[in-house]
């Protein structure tokens, strides 16, 4: 059952002059009825189906029209109240808490724009308690939160000195549960701390290239199945500091519209021309590729030096998985290069945790640049790039990071080495393997249950990132608070991280979650969902028999 989302739809809709939205699905509220028939159909339609070795089920249910209208009204009301409050602040009726410019510098040009400020002051500030919640324990399956309270509607926080214990953690990217303070990883990292200290105080090219760094890179290369790899101290910087080394003036970068800020920044810093294709939409990508090659560079019509496609394995706000088999087919057909950011997918996908390439049963050699981070599945920090030896050699000599940035902290390196060995089974246990299995099962179970409850869930069935739609701005804060009241920590996101009406909650499933924890979380989500009327879905999913753990998700890939 390969759902090729709107791939087939798109052409006909585009011909009708309707703007296709994400995944080629038409976001037109007037046609939602018609849309449903279509969507049900595409669940069974196969497009490029032969490229996929496993079912690819991904859905983005249409926003119900009423909800969309109410959401806009919500923003309208909040904006009106915002202006009202600003007016009152102006006339000193309401106390103003905003940090002010220094008297001496009042006549300087203002440091930031007023609109950014309006949104922050009047909307974000009211529900600010849902973010930056300080924690004071391991970010494992459960964590302890530092309790804080506010007497002035979140302008300032006071720490009450109490700790909210054992909150179920559905927020951290701890996919394989390696965020631990005991066990093999923590012990090894502890030993290294005592021996080496935490800093390095030099760069890789000067005096900061330790044998441990090289060991990590060799291990990462063998884990990824590539010739060579290089590690960097920060995941964000891995993108933003290495893309400029790979592309420059006269090159074209094709970037998915929902790519992470670091990829966007890297592309911008490179000085290449950037064109954006619709999220995970292969028609859009192919059209850009064809036109780009046929027409060459703008104005001069010189042929492009090279074309680099930037995509992510799992999109962290959508929960979608890249259509990698199709991307690879396209990149081969048009001789483009592929840069794959596996920040969320490495460790979290594939029967051996080797990411989206393994998930689809593809050859890592077909991806030119394999990028990923150590922050998530490995419970550490930093990022890597893997690929052919000539690529990595080039980066060793030209990466901004290797030359100007301090090398990775050694306890962090040790954490990665130990956890990676565990995932690979090199530690002589099956812990890693069972965690991968566990994560896959947890993911499928959690997603299925949420859908059955009637929530709108975005993304791929196998993605451990589970976005659940909230839509209305007031529900962002309400959901975050109500969940915390019931001792569950969730992430809620709104504009500008998402489109304005698509505010959502995001759950990150971990291998560390037990079935009891997930069930408890699901019960609470359902309860809060009823309270806040979040069960928007109009797809009827019949609750199947509750047998979550008897089928393995990776059946067909098992050796």
């Amino acid at each position, binding site marked *: 059952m390969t759902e090729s989302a709107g791939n087939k739809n798109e052409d006909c809709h585009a011909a009708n002059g309707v703007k296709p939205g994400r995944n080629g699905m038409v976001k037109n509220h007037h046609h939602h009825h018609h849309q449903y028939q279509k969507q049900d159909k595409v669940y069974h339609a196969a497009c490029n189906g032969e490229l996929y070795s496993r079912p690819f089920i991904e859905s983005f249910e249409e926003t119900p029209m009423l909800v969309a209208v109410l959401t806009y009204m919500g923003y309208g009301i909040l904006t009106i109240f915002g202006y009202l409050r600003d007016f009152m602040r102006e006339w000193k009726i309401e106390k103003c808490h905003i940090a002010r410019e220094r008297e001496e510098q009042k006549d300087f040009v203002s440091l*930031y724009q007023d609109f950014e400020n309006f949104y922050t002051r009047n909307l974000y500030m009211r529900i600010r308690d849902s973010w930056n919640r300080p924690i004071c324990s*391991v970010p494992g399956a459960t964590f302890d939160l530092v309790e804080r309270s506010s007497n002035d509607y979140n302008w300032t926080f006071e720490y009450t000195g109490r700790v909210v214990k054992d909150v179920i953690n559905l927020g951290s990217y701890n996919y394989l549960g390696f965020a631990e303070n005991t066990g093999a*990883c923590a012990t090894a990292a502890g030993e290294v*701390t005592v021996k080496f200290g935490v800093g390095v105080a030099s760069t890789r090219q*000067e005096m900061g290239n330790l044998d441990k760094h090289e060991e990590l890179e060799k291990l990462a290369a063998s884990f990824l199945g590539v010739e060579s790899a290089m590690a960097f101290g920060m995941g*964000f910087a891995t993108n933003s500091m290495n893309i400029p080394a790979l592309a420059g003036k006269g090159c074209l970068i094709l970037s998915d519209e929902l790519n992470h800020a670091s990829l966007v920044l890297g592309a911008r810093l490179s000085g290449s021309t950037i064109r954006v294709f619709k999220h995970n939409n292969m028609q859009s990508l192919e059209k850009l590729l064809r036109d780009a090659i046929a027409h060459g560079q703008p104005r001069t019509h010189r042929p492009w030096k090279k074309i680099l496609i930037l995509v992510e394995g799992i999109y962290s706000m959508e929960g979608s998985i890249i259509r990698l088999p199709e991307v690879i087919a396209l990149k081969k057909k048009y001789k483009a290069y592929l840069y794959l950011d596996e920040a969320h997918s490495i460790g979290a996908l594939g029967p051996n945790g080797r990411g989206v390439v393994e998930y689809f049963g593809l050859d890592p050699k077909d991806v030119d640049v394999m990028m990923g981070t150590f922050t998530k599945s490995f419970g550490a920090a930093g990022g890597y790039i893997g690929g052919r030896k000539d690529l990595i050699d080039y980066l060793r*000599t030209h990466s901004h990071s290797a030359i100007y940035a301090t090398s990775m902290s050694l306890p962090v390196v040790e954490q990665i080495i130990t956890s990676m060995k565990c995932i690979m089974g090199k530690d002589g246990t099956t812990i890693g393997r069972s965690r991968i299995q566990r994560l896959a099962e947890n993911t499928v179970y959690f997603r299925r249950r949420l859908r059955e409850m009637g929530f709108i869930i975005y993304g791929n069935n196998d993605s451990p990132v589970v976005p659940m739609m909230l839509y209305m701005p007031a529900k962002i804060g309400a959901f975050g608070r109500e969940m915390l009241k019931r001792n569950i920590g969730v*992430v809620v996101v709104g504009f500008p991280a998402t489109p304005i009406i698509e505010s959502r909650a995001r759950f990150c499933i971990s291998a560390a979650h037990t079935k009891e924890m997930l069930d408890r979380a699901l019960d609470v989500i359902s309860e809060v969902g009823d309270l806040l009327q979040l069960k928007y879905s109009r797809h009827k999913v019949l609750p199947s028999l509750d047998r979550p753990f008897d089928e393995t998700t990776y059946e067909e890939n098992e050796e």
Partner: protein
Amino acid sequence: MKHAHAQSRDSVKMAAGQQWVLVEMVQAFYEAPAYHLILEGILILWIIRLLFSKTYKLQERSDLTEKEKEELIEEWQPEPLVPPVSKDHPSLNYDVVTGPPSHKIIVNGKECINFASFNFLGLLDSERVKLKALLSLKKYGVGTCGPRGFYGTFDVHLELEERLAKFMRTEEAIIYSYGFATIASAIPAYSKRGDIIFVDEAACFSIQKGLQASRSFVKHFKHNDMEDLERLLKEQEIEDQKNPRKARVIRRFIVVEGLYINTADICPLPDLVKLKYKYKVRIFLEESMSFGVLGEHGRGVTEHFGVNIDDIDLISANMENALASIGGFCCGRSFVIDHQRLSGQGYCFSASLPPMLASAAIEALNIMEEDPGIFRVLQDKCKHVHKALQGTPGLKVVGEPLAPALHLQLENSTGSRTNDLKLLRAIVDYSMDRQIALTLARYLEKEERFLPPPSIRVVVTVEQTQEEIERAAQCIREAAVKILK
């Protein structure tokens, strides 16, 4: 009440009037001659066409047939993803350090005294710092598994921010998980397209990246040349007078380093502050080399000159040199710093600093606060090294006596950068054979805006003894005599 009634009656009348006009229009439509209708019809269609057609199509201007397109696609040959790197590229084969990168360091299998790592205060080797890091590891694990916004804020992060703000005597501090990303994220958080940044030519690479990311208008002034800066500021003033309305929305910044990593000299901060108020430009100060080095209490270049820290809009520094941990921070007034919590890309979109590294930084701050004498010791050592290196034949010392990281440049260049680098590398190798670990200063030659001349970096730390410094200076002298004949 009466008034309202009258009003509503008026509106009824008006509605009736409008209706009448409509009827008339329909009648006129029937009576109009056919050619008139056709003409109007064509005009309406034309208007619709104009409304809906794109004014120009960037991509599809030339009319290629599908076949031609296929041929073009078939013919196109891209450049390789990366150009080949020769096996003996000078920066391909890194020196390998085994064991801790501390005062005594094993480089390529040889134990040396470290004159290369920016471990100015020797805190990398501190048992106290290691112990605190270990305790933190046992409490929090290693990674944070999230950005600050999404459960990546730990109590130690808040503590470190508070401590840094207190140490620097500013209102607020914000920490980043990567030193390089600190100033590179801070600049574009404030300076946007259309704004103007005045920057010193010798500014380090992370500042250059920040400028690039901001897409602002960048004006370079000669290194530490206040006259040149004032000239640029005056030019801008004249420009502003021409268009005062535009001038009111252009933000202006001066971006400088406290102690330049590339030239090892100190910026004339008091003069900069004068210019700041004269021309209403904000100052961003990058202090990675001067934080924990200059000043009586290690507060950096503001303390060194006795400048009021509130006169500097933003100070940024990394925690990877003097503090010997990882990451960076910005500090200043809350009005300025708080803005980064939503706009600093490297802050919002990156996983937060591992808590054990934050704990290590806190302990390092403790040590610095408990024993401010350490800065005096460092400053004396710096002066000592500076003096000891004077008069090395064929090499000149670049940098101020107070700088903890000096550059040794060739007095007479061979004329080719590659050959210069080879000569300097030979000196480094010679010293390394004699237990003095040095390193070349590395740059991306094609990317640096103003590429500094090749040099050997000499780093001073408090752990180096009198005798070791003499030995190092002696060794470099010998090498220079031998190699630079």
